[in-house]
């Protein structure tokens, strides 16, 4: 059989060098394809190689870098790259599967459906593992939405469209969106970042694998019918967005969350039986990717017949059927003799189900169409042997000015700090995201314990009776100025956020958003950031269990600020350790863990107040950070901490203000920062030095807390007390005062007002 060459389909165009280039394949890659096949590919096969060897599926430009991540640990059950998502043990026979994935390019073209199908895709990745999806997070970046002009209008359209799309899919399918982050910056104009995260829970023995095992086993296609939507979207996501991208518009897929809900329930019911040998979702590159990957993982071959694939449209060619990215579809390899079990369950849930092929022993991915062979490719080389590149890396000339920066900012800056804090709190990147998360059903299925708005979201996995904290973090500005330090800080901040919530960090999934890797400066950023993330993941003992790479994030306006988004999950052993960032009671003592700090480079203050994206971002000291987090967890576990909030964008002043904004009732604070001595006022309030957390404690515990911190070698400063109707900060002679209601309104209503204005 394998000696038969695949026959060209009647309407196939001839294979020319233009056609090869149009498929994003280089002449060298084409030669490699010919070597693998022992002949020239036909049109369908060219399409298959094109998507499988795109950056989106093969990570050909990033895989060598990804190998630098630590990926193993005592509690890691499924490691990065083995399956659709990594799986981590959380004790008592339970485990969680989680992953983050980007849908940047589809969202740039059609924000609502692009974001919606992103959510649908990541949910499928999770239930493919046999896990029930429990909650979603998302990490988003848009161009500026404040001000006037065509670009601002376009940015608002993308912002509101993406939020509506996420809300639509998540709310309809009934999985709560409980947290995440949103930033606004010029560099994301025309190329927003939409990174969606999903976590699911399963018992160890429920773990499902995406391998085609058992020669002769039947291969089932389940889920929605295949249409021409999203044709070759993976290849699309592996190019820069240009003006012409608008003409690529048929690439947009439309999601159907109600269909996916049925698919989810049907798959989980089927996985609970012993009928399934392997399961794989059809995401990017659809039928092609799921077929050759399952065969490659199983060390087998797969033969499918396209005539049996349920189709929505008539006259679809093999090329179109194989490369379609229709949503809500899965490939299931059943055990022979269990066909009826599969049919009965999918029939019950009203989900289309068709036996389209079988597992073979010849290692080939063979695609039949009405009796003729449409494509025949060795599965393993196709899935796993894409060329790997190490691109040229060049350090860009930096615009460091360091200490000069402070001199450049006029001294009057220090005099207007009262207004500066208000402007920072109104800045959409810092302001409350309630306008966004009110659109999300963040309470459905009632597992959400700490709602959006605190350092990390906390969720009760009722089935397992476990409490998890989850967060996404990345400061793209730090990464632009120093990608290695930015990467280290992203991991440290995620761990700090989890620690503030009372959790012990478990593991990481990352989403690397960068520009075109063929540009040496972009590749240098990627390499530096990955190495920074890897160092930090080792330091915090949080292995990377999977993730996603999105390159070519560029628009005519330029490349995005490098954004290696870190999503981290932690476990809170006991319910009473759950801690939020908000002050709880008047009279409580406010303590700063860490030093007053002095680093101004890359701060939000410089960006928002002085329009400067410059300087050397703050340095991170792992030892210091680890000691701080360890001591904070110890204090939380001893019941000594009323609230804990980490200092990030906007520095200590913003952290203090946010701690005052308890959703159940605002509380002021009287703070004395005279101890910072010698520094300029704006520097004391807004520097972003790392490893700092603001906590509050009941008055009787304060001495004990200070004593323990001293013993543990963690610097700590007693700042003042909770209470009053203002945030009052004294620095020596200087007395600053912000009525709490006023700054709360600045912060809480900012984004809603901006969106309503338009």
């Amino acid at each position, binding site marked *: 059989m394998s000696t038969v060459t695949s026959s060209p389909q009647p309407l196939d165009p001839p294979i020319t060098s233009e056609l090869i280039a149009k498929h994003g394949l280089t002449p060298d890659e084409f030669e490699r394809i010919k070597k693998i096949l022992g002949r020239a590919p036909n049109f369908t096969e060219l399409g298959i190689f094109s998507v499988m060897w795109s950056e989106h599926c093969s990570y050909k430009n990033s895989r060598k870098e990804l190998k630098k991540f630590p990926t193993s640990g005592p509690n890691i059950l499924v490691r990065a790259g083995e399956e659709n998502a990594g799986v981590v043990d959380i004790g008592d026979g339970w485990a969680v599967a989680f992953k983050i994935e980007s849908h940047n390019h589809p969202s740039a073209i*059609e924000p609502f*459906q692009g974001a919606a199908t992103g959510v649908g895709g990541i949910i499928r990745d999770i239930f493919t593992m046999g896990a029930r999806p429990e909650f979603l997070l998302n990490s988003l970046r848009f161009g500026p939405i404040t001000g006037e002009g065509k670009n601002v209008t376009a940015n608002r359209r993308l912002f509101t469209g993406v939020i509506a799309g996420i809300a639509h899919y998540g709310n309809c399918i009934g999985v709560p969106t409980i947290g995440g982050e949103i930033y606004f910056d010029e560099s994301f104009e025309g190329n927003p970042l939409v990174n969606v995260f999903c976590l699911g829970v399963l018992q160890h023995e429920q773990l499902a694998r995406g391998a085609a095992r058992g020669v002769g086993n039947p291969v089932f296609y389940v889920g929605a019918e295949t249409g021409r939507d999203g044709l070759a979207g993976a290849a699309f996501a592996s190019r820069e967005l240009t003006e012409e991208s608008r003409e690529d518009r*048929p690439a947009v897929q439309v999601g159907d969350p109600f269909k996916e809900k049925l698919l989810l329930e049907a798959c989980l019911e089927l996985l609970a039986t012993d009928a399934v040998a392997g399961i794989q979702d059809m995401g990017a590159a659809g039928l092609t990717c799921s077929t050759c990957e399952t065969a490659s993982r199983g060390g087998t071959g797969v033969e499918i017949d396209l005539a049996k694939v349920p189709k929505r449209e008539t006259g679809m060619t093999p090329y179109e059927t194989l490369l379609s990215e229709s949503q809500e579809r899965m490939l299931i390899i059943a055990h022979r003799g269990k066909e009826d079990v599969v049919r009965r369950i999918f029939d019950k849930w009203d989900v289309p189900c068709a036996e389209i092929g079988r597992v073979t022993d010849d290692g080939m991915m063979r695609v039949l169409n009405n009796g003729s062979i449409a494509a025949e490719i060795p599965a393993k080389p196709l899935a796993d042997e894409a060329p790997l590149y190490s691109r040229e890396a060049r350090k860009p000339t930096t615009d460091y000015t360091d200490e000069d920066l402070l001199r450049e900012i006029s001294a009057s800056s220090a005099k207007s700090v009262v207004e500066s804090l208000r402007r920072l709190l109104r800045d959409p990147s810092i302001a409350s995201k309630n306008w966004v998360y009110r659109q999300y059903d963040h309470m459905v299925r009632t597992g959400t314990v700490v709602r959006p708005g605190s350092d990390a979201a906390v969720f009760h996995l009722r089935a397992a009776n476990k409490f998890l904290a989850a967060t996404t973090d990345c400061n793209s500005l730090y990464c632009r100025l120093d990608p290695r330090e930015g990467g280290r800080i992203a991991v440290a901040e995620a761990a700090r956020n989890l620690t503030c919530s009372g959790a012990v960090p478990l593991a990481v999934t990352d989403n690397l958003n960068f520009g075109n890797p063929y540009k040496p400066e972009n590749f240098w950023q990627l390499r530096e950031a990955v190495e920074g993330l890897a160092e930090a993941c080792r330091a915090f003992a949080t292995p990377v269990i999977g993730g996603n790479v999105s390159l070519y994030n560029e628009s005519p306006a330029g490349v995005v600020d490098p954004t290696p988004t870190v999503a981290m999950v932690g476990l809170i052993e006991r319910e009473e350790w759950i801690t939020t960032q908000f002050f709880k009671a008047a009279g409580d003592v406010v303590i700063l863990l860490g030093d007053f700090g002095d680093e101004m480079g890359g701060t939000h203050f410089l960006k928002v107040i002085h329009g400067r994206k410059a300087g050397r971002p703050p340095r991170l000291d792992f030892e210091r950070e680890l000691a701080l987090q360890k001591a904070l967890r110890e204090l939380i576990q001893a019941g000594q901490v009323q609230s804990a909030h980490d200092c990030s964008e906007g520095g200590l002043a913003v952290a203090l203000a946010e701690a005052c904004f308890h959703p159940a009732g605002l509380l002021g604070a009287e703070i004395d920062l005279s101890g910072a001595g010698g520094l300029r006022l704006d520097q004391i309030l807004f520097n972003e030095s790392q490893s700092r957390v603001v906590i509050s404690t009941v008055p009787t515990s304060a001495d004990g807390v200070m004593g323990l911190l001293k013993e543990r070698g963690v610097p700590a400063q007693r700042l003042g007390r909770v209470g009053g109707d203002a945030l009052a900060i004294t620095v020596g002679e200087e007395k600053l005062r912000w009525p709490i209601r006023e700054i709360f309104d600045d912060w809480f209503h900012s984004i809603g007002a901006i969106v309503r204005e338009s």
Partner: protein
Amino acid sequence: MKVKVIVTPKETVLDPQGAAVREAMQHLGFTAARDVRIGRYLEIEVEGDAAAQEPKLRELCHDLLSNPVIEDYRLEMPNEKS
């Protein structure tokens, strides 16, 4: 004069609403329903010479009344019948 605009999902784009209605029809025994596509129909009263307004109307169809990424529109001027 009355101008009509019909907006439909593009042929290659999935229409979940239409699919749901088709399935409901089949459940009710109308198994002949092979495909259902659901769009929008607008009637616009235009003052004066509608033909002169056609370029502006087309612009509105493209920028406001339809989402050209996933929808097609058909503008029917009063004197034409398709």
